[in-house]
């Protein structure tokens, strides 16, 4: 074990995330345990080399952005990560045409901000954001557009009255789908609840996002049915009270098991 177990530990995790994350079931959970002692990182001798490569990659990319004057020393780190990711995926905008972040950028920034609360080291943090975002897009990109329909389906099974109320006041299309299904609740759930949801996402199911959304709706049914306007529903759900979220996530996971069995590969 090296002098900083936490670091090795994270290295081990993000490696899983980057390369074999889909098969790993408990990845984020393991990573985020308070006491990582006793966990021996796999292949610890090769970790040093891998970490070194990633550090170099981080410095190469961020250095180039600075040279191109996309960023400067006081650029917020989340914005730096966004530009780095854009550069790496060949989507860096022309500097002359830099505009306000679009929805996709905003989604990235929300994920980055949430990850930053969990991970201190910038290299690790960027690597995790990058892994999460890439994996999410590759693995679930095709499923995401269908999640709102899926939400309707499961809500109809769990509480048809609530669904029909939402439909009646025209609130269905205005539900915060971006927050739920593209940011994976980043910025919408407190850190500890978020980690449990992301853990499931990393282990290979984006369907958990639907069940969390269903449970949120069920938990606040009375509040929601007090609203007559779609905007009121949207605003409430976009700024959810933060007290009850652990229970919501627990119920969501139960619901997920109920509808999907042992949902290792339920997408």
């Amino acid at each position, binding site marked *: 074990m090296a002098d900083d177990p936490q670091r090795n530990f994270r290295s081990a995790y993000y490696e899983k995330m980057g*390369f074999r994350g889909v098969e790993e079931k408990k990845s984020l959970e393991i990573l985020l345990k308070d006491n990582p002692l006793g966990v021996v990182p796999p292949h610890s001798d*090769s970790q040093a080399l891998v970490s070194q*490569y*990633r550090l*170099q990659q981080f410095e190469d*990319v961020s250095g180039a952005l600075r040279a191109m004057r996309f960023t400067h020393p006081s650029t917020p780190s989340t914005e730096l990560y966004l530009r780095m990711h854009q550069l*790496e995926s060949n989507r860096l905008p*022309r500097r002359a045409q830099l505009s306000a972040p679009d929805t996709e950028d905003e989604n990235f920034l929300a994920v980055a901000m949430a990850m930053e609360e969990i991970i201190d080291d910038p290299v690790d943090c960027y690597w995790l954001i990058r892994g999460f975002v890439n994996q999410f897009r590759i693995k679930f990109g095709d499923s995401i557009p269908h999640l709102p329909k899926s939400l309707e389906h499961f809500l109809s099974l769990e509480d048809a009255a609530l669904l029909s109320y939402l439909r009646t006041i025209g609130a269905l299309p205005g539900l915060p789908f971006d927050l739920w299904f593209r940011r994976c609740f980043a910025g919408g759930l407190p850190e500890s609840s978020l980690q449990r949801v992301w853990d499931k996402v990393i282990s290979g199911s984006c369907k958990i996002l639907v069940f969390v959304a269903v449970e949120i709706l069920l938990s606040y049914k009375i509040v929601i049915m007090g609203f007559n306007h779609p905007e009121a529903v949207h605003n409430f759900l976009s700024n959810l009270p933060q007290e009850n979220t652990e229970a919501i996530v627990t119920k969501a996971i139960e619901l997920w098991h109920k509808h999907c069995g042992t949902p290792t590969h339920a997408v």
Partner: protein
Amino acid sequence: LLENVKNQATEQLQASESRYLAQKQIAQALQLELLELYSKIELKTMNTWPISDPNS
């Protein structure tokens, strides 16, 4: 053991490749930026100093 060695090698290779690919993207982005700057300079030069050499 063999499996282990193979996994290690794969991890290292992937990290190394990722570093290489990032570097490749960097070169591309730099090239685009340079192109843009050059065309800007030439445009300015044409507009304001029609006789001067753009590289001066």
